[in-house]
């Protein structure tokens, strides 16, 4: 479970700290930085796993526009069975005009003890007893952690990497989802928009068959009435992902994935993601999961996400504009993000007074947000977002849930 995320000099995130819980819901106006936070998780994950270099993932335009500093800093706190990991990454943009940068610090500790430390000159790999046993070749653009081979004496480091592998970041765009996957394409991690879902499902079918089975069962049981299973027949050099539905006759109805409605495609992807996150005991980051779904499907999804997070099956970090999501989750699990047009993102937890009662003039959280009243209820602009504390939280005293 991620405990916190820190970013400095990255887009609208300047000296920004986000504390995280098993279920965290990010709220705020358009442009407040919610999606930026989720996308950052995907970038750091991809960097640690060697799926991209610092040049590809952190080009100069990812620096904060009004900030003249040339260094970006990122930090993640992650708790696994082994203890509490802290991952730190610093990137220096020495020649932004030529899109050149280099990693000047990559460091991993477990409960404060070193597992990996690299600067631009020296890379040291520590064993599970935290002794610096090996010097590795330094690479200015590729994560050193991604290049460590799994061995009996670095179980702690490889456990961290597996924890990071369990991080799914989804910002669905069903319009981009294709039913076609190339024959040899192995998609171990989907793109956030899930345009490569067909390839990802092929990978899951081979590597995490139980998750695919769970997704199929869940879709059949509720979200997609009549759904029976996936199939992916060959079509030349590619495979076509199809969904098999029961029909009134003995012959089933078969649709390509991209023939389904946007809402149905979203349901297919979300069910698969939930099944995979459960199987991996991982982290699911969802950007507006209520998008595209019919109203009747939103509440069951939110309930399942809440159950999964609070029962410890996987962590959920999500953004929300949907009124149902806001009213159901925001008061207990919400963080409010806001920023001035040319200022950094600030974050504060949302709290609701326990004295909410029938004798108060109740206003729903979603109504407060829609009316622009939320920021007037105690939000303080502080020097740094890391100064968040309970006294300065966005305080809602007269709130009632959606009827």
């Amino acid at each position, binding site marked *: 479970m991620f405990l916190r995320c820190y970013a400095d000099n990255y887009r609208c995130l300047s000296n920004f700290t986000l504390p995280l819980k098993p279920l965290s819901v990010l709220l705020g106006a358009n442009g407040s930085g919610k999606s930026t936070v989720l996308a950052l998780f995907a970038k750091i994950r991809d960097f640690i796993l060697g799926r991209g270099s610092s040049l590809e993932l952190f080009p100069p335009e990812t620096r904060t526009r009004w900030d003249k500093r040339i260094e970006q800093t990122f930090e993640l706190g992650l708790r696994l069975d082994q203890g509490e990991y802290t991952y730190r990454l610093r990137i220096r943009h020495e020649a932004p005009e030529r899109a050149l940068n280099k990693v000047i610090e990559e460091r991993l500790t477990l409960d404060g003890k070193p597992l990996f430390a690299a600067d631009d000159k020296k890379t040291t790999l520590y064993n599970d007893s935290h002794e610096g046993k090996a010097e590795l070749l330094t690479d200015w653009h590729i994560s050193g952690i991604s290049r460590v081979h799994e061995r009996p004496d670095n179980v702690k480091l490889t456990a961290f990497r597996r924890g990071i592998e369990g991080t799914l970041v989804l910002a669905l765009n069903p319009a981009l989802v294709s039913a076609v996957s190339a024959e040899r394409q192995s998609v171990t991690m989907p793109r956030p928009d899930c345009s490569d879902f067909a390839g990802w499902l092929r990978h899951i079918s081979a590597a995490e068959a139980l998750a695919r089975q769970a997704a199929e069962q869940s879709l059949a*049981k*509720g979200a997609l*009435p009549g759904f029976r299973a996936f199939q992916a027949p060959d079509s030349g050099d590619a495979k076509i992902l199809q969904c098999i539905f029961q029909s009134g006759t003995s012959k089933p109805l078969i649709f390509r994935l991209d023939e389904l409605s946007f809402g149905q495609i979203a349901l297919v992807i979300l069910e698969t993601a939930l099944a995979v996150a459960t199987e991996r005991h991982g982290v699911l980051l969802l950007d507006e999961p209520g998008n595209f779904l*019919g109203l*009747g*499907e939103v*509440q*069951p999804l939110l*309930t*399942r996400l*809440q*159950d999964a997070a*609070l*029962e*410890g099956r996987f962590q959920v970090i999500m953004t929300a504009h949907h009124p149902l999501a806001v*009213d*159901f989750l*925001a*008061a*207990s699990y919400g963080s409010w993000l806001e920023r001035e047009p040319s200022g950094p993102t600030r974050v504060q937890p949302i709290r*609701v*007074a*326990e*004295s*909410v*009662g*029938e*004798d108060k003039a109740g206003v729903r*959280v979603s109504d407060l947000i829609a009316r622009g009243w939320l920021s007037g209820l105690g939000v303080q602009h502080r020097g740094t977002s890391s100064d968040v504390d309970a006294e300065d939280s966005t305080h809602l005293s007269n*709130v*009632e*849930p959606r*009827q």
Partner: protein
Amino acid sequence: MSRVCKIILVCEGWRDSAFARGFLVEAGVGGRNIEPRTNPGGSGHDWVKTQFIAEVANLDRFSEGRGVLGLLDEDGQGVSTRQQEIADRLKANGLGSLAAIDGRCLLLPTRNLETWLYWLTGQKNGLLVAVDETTDYKLVGPPTAASPIGNEHCRPAGEWLHTLDHTHLPEGCPPMLRIALGQLREFLKAVRR
């Protein structure tokens, strides 16, 4: 076809909701047919009372709904006091009295939900544990562990409750849990109609 929500569950928080849904789903009610409504601010007796009355009124207005199930901790206020509070509000809103067989059911965990979780978790693990309805078991670990009762105990406790026979409950069952199980059996008949 889109889902039809048949049961509205009104509770103070997620734990009550998980417990009740554990029971209902174990009894064969589809999870998608239950809509949990929990107080956005955590605990809040007034909120539960208000919402419960509102949803009972909705049940009379909309035929698609089959049942409203509420959970309200007694919390040392007295069961009869709690029952009278609800009865007064029903009357003030022109609503008839509660009857689980009509799909209008209010459970009163006494002293609170953790009393039931403590006893049921012990039962589930084959332990005969004694509980009383005045101790606050939020502060006491489950019989099998040193740590306090956690979220992970809620749903399994509800599921386990469904396996018990309310006419032959094991010795030591908290009195209000015995009553609640009887109410829940009646409630199930109502929502399955």
